[in-house]
């Protein structure tokens, strides 16, 4: 398939079957840098499955997913170097504090990897509104605050592609605004975002691409 120079991620002819039910088939998607894609559809339409297929967590029933023109299963490490995936469960350890969780993410992800956090990231904590809560184990924070710990990874990340499953869940209005700002930053630097959300994303000044999945019976 001809690749446009800006093409970041492409899915060709992808199908997903869960149990006996075909969620979607012959699905094509081309994500270019600077784009935000919103996957829409009713519950059970396969939005999360599609995101997991794009992230390489779930093999598609048929079809292929390519990152920068190369099939993701052939170049897994290089792809995951450029990918940030946040699912329903975001991998925040409930026993650890916000700082300890962020320290782990900083040492394993992206281009800052290996350095960890040199000092407590107060600027980052201030960005996501967690100042004063940094020494409390995550399990004692509210759902929205735990979500903020996970989303703080967006401020640590240099990944070109963000795949976010329902990023706005349990966030308050202020948190949603913060996230919008960060989305703009990601798009302005030539990154791309693929996400699911039931919210209308009216506040984004960037053109939004949408893909609607229908519920297949």
């Amino acid at each position, binding site marked *: 398939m001809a690749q446009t120079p800006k093409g970041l991620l492409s899915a060709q002819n992808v199908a997903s079957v869960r149990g006996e039910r075909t969620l979607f088939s012959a699905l094509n998607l081309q994500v270019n840098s600077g784009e935000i894609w919103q996957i829409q559809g009713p519950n059970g339409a396969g939005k999360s499955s599609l995101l997991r297929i794009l*992230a*390489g*967590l*779930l093999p598609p029933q048929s079809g292929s997913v390519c990152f920068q023109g190369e099939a993701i299963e052939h170049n897994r*490490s*290089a792809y*995951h*170097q450029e*990918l940030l*995936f946040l*699912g*329903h*469960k*975001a*991998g*925040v*350890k*409930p*026993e*650890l504090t916000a700082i*300890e969780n962020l320290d*782990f993410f900083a*040492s*394993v*992800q992206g281009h800052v*990897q*290996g*350095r*960890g956090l040199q000092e407590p990231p107060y600027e980052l904590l201030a960005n996501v509104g967690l100042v004063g809560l940094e020494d409390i*184990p995550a399990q004692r924070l509210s759902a929205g605050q735990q979500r903020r710990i996970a989303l703080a990874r967006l401020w640590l990340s240099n990944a070109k592609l963000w795949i976010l499953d329902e990023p706005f869940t349990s966030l308050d209005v202020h948190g949603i605004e913060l996230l919008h700002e960060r989305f703009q930053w990601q798009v302005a630097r030539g990154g791309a975002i693929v996400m699911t959300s039931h919210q209308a994303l009216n506040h984004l000044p960037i053109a939004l691409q949408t893909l609607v999945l229908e519920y297949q019976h």
Partner: protein
Amino acid sequence: MTGLLAIFIAIMRRDLRVAMRQRSDLLNPILFLLVVITLFPLGVGPGPDVLSRIAPGVIWVSAILSALLGLERIFRDDFRDGALEQMLLLPVAVEWSVLAKITVHWLLTALPLLVLAPLFALLLNLTPSAWGTLWVTLLLGTPVISCVGAIGVALTVSLNKGGALLSLLLLPLLIPLLIFATAAVEASATGLSPAGPLALMAAIMVLTVVLSPYAVHAALRVSVN
């Protein structure tokens, strides 16, 4: 490769920190072991001949059973909070991350056992000439328990009631270990050379440490789907 080492260390550090916040979970298996070994002399009678004859078997059987107690912790919590999924998305071969998790499990379960082994030998009146061999069998055998256990946990982590299945799955695989370990200890207790069974145990250990991360990776890919 610096990235690889950094990620290996980061996973170990995080898991050790998490474990230190759940100390009661850590103490449980080792207390179980201690209780079983102190109860045996009460149950079978304190005759020194009887005890020293059954000592290798008792220590090893209870070591295996106590290892099964805390085994699910390798991946269960990670599966629940999504850290397992994130582990599959790290920019290194998943086998390295798996090896880091297995190493942490071994440090947390086997090190206390190795430290307490002389005490167990004393409590069960094991012939002093066999103490060293017992320690070596534990040193060679516990990595096998952690590695084989990790495969079992990876296969059953997505099942709600995986615990019973896990024991059924793992116990048969650990029988060779039990046979060679007790054979080695008994050999040294009767003044024979334990080299044969020890060499076999070392071979089993090398094999499982090298190959199990691949099996765990394959099992995890199925489990997180």
